[in-house]
């Protein structure tokens, strides 16, 4: 096949900040629903259209997610849910799902999620201004996961180092494999303990889960734990930053955030659409397919343009407007189909809780006047920093 040159060749969507991503995507949309752009230095397909993206997510023959995940991360991450397909995925997912379903996730809010929010907010007490990304939105979802896993506070720092290193395999294989060894032996102790003395916690639930006569062995539990950090922490923290950037900038949205659970749910959903954290998801085509006029060949890299689909004007009228009253049921931020986000309920409850607790603790919190907010990244996207004044102009 003739190499099709990328559009906007001066921009590399993997490396550049692309602060103007949505403008670029609008410009690309004029060239068709599936376009060629530059990613990691090479021409790569990008799906921009909501309907076609939905189709691609559900097309497990031509877009088997596990192909890309195995290639990039299996050595250090192990066989995670994302690296599985077919029956292996079905049973493994069914075994871990109960810990992430709506009723269970609600039970984490009061004893686990809220206290983490309060602890982090305690630390900014008395400060005139802070970067809210570093002080709150970044550590918050990470700490929720370490608490779910039963990790004591004094080990959170070392866990963070290992978790960050695990996904570095493509650049630092030795470091990533060492981190895996350390992470696994640490977590194995907690798993062993819950196997022998089950409590009602998250790890015990997994250690004793059963589905169609199967149970989770240690490696499958460890693989889930390794995946929780990149899948659950990076995504949620980027979105938390974008959410507070929008809500604090607009008095009407801010008033809505203080109103009711339903209002907060709507704000979080619109935040996930308006500035999707999982902006573009790299996939590898696992079959030859013509999509939106593009002839995609087996082995080609394809970016799933989630953030573009979430602003597809055919599905979301006036798509650039932040409007929590719109019908957002076509939201595609959490993917579609068999790999649909396992942590969707947890991520949403974390973000809703954050809105409620932050605005209760610091009712006068505001964006620092004059400090511009830059959203960066085309794979994972969120604000670079978010300077706030917890006590307003006091």
């Amino acid at each position: 096949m003739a190499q099709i040159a990328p559009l906007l060749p001066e921009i590399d969507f993997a490396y550049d900040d692309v602060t103007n991503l949505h403008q670029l995507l609008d410009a690309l949309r004029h060239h068709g629903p599936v376009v060629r752009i530059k990613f990691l230095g090479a021409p790569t397909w990008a799906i921009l259209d909501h309907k076609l993206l939905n189709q691609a997510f559900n097309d497990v023959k031509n877009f088997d997610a596990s192909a890309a995940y195995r290639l990039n991360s299996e050595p250090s991450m192990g066989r995670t849910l994302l690296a599985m397909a077919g029956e292996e995925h079905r049973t493994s997912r069914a075994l871990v799902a109960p810990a992430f379903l709506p009723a269970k996730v609600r039970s984490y809010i009061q004893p686990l999620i809220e206290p983490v929010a309060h602890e982090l907010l305690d630390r900014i007490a008395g400060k005139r201004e802070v970067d809210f990304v570093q002080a709150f939105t970044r550590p918050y979802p990470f700490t929720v996961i370490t608490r779910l896993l039963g990790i004591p506070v004094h080990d959170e720092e070392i866990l963070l180092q290992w978790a960050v290193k695990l996904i570095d395999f493509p650049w630092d294989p030795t470091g990533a494999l060492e981190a895996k060894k350390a992470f696994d032996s640490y977590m194995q102790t907690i798993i062993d303990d819950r196997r022998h003395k089950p409590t009602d916690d998250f790890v015990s639930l997994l250690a004793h889960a059963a589905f169609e006569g199967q149970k989770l062995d240690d490696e499958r539990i460890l693989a889930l734990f390794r995946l929780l950090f990149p899948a659950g922490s990076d995504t949620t923290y980027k979105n938390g930053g974008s959410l507070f950037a929008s809500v604090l900038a607009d008095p009407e949205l801010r008033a809505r955030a203080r109103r009711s659970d339903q209002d907060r749910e709507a704000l979080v959903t619109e935040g996930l659409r308006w500035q999707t954290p999982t902006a573009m998801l790299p996939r590898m085509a696992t079959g030859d397919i013509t999509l939106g006029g593009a002839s995609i060949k087996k082995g080609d890299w394809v970016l799933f343009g989630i953030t573009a689909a979430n602003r597809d004007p055919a599905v979301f009228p006036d798509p650039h407007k932040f409007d929590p009253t719109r019908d957002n049921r076509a939201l595609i931020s959490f993917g579609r189909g068999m790999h649909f986000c396992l942590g969707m309920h947890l991520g949403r409850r974390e973000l809703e809780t954050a809105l409620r607790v932050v605005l209760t603790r610091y009712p006068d919190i505001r964006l620092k006047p004059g400090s511009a907010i830059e959203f960066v990244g085309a794979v994972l996207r969120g604000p670079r920093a978010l300077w706030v004044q917890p006590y307003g102009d006091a």
Partner: protein
Amino acid sequence: MQVIFIDSEGMKTTITAAPGDSVMHCATAHLVPGLIGECGGAMACATCHGYVGADWSRQLPPPSTQEREVLSGCLDVQPHSRLTCQITLTAALDGLTITLPASQT
């Protein structure tokens, strides 16, 4: 054929549907409130929970092990709770009535 949705406050919406469609899709395509269907029917999101009356329930194929497991994690589960993405409409289901829970999540 018709499918009737009743929300948690008793508001009734009647939809003209086609055999072969899923109940979840029939609701979202007509903007019926109270049901989301975010994973698109993969039993992966648990946001398409609905209650089927006892009489209708008997006419449906029973839920799979996977559906039962996802249902058990939904809010306010009742004996005739179903994931509506797993109910495929047939002509025999004309008049099927689904009551929706107060919250999916």
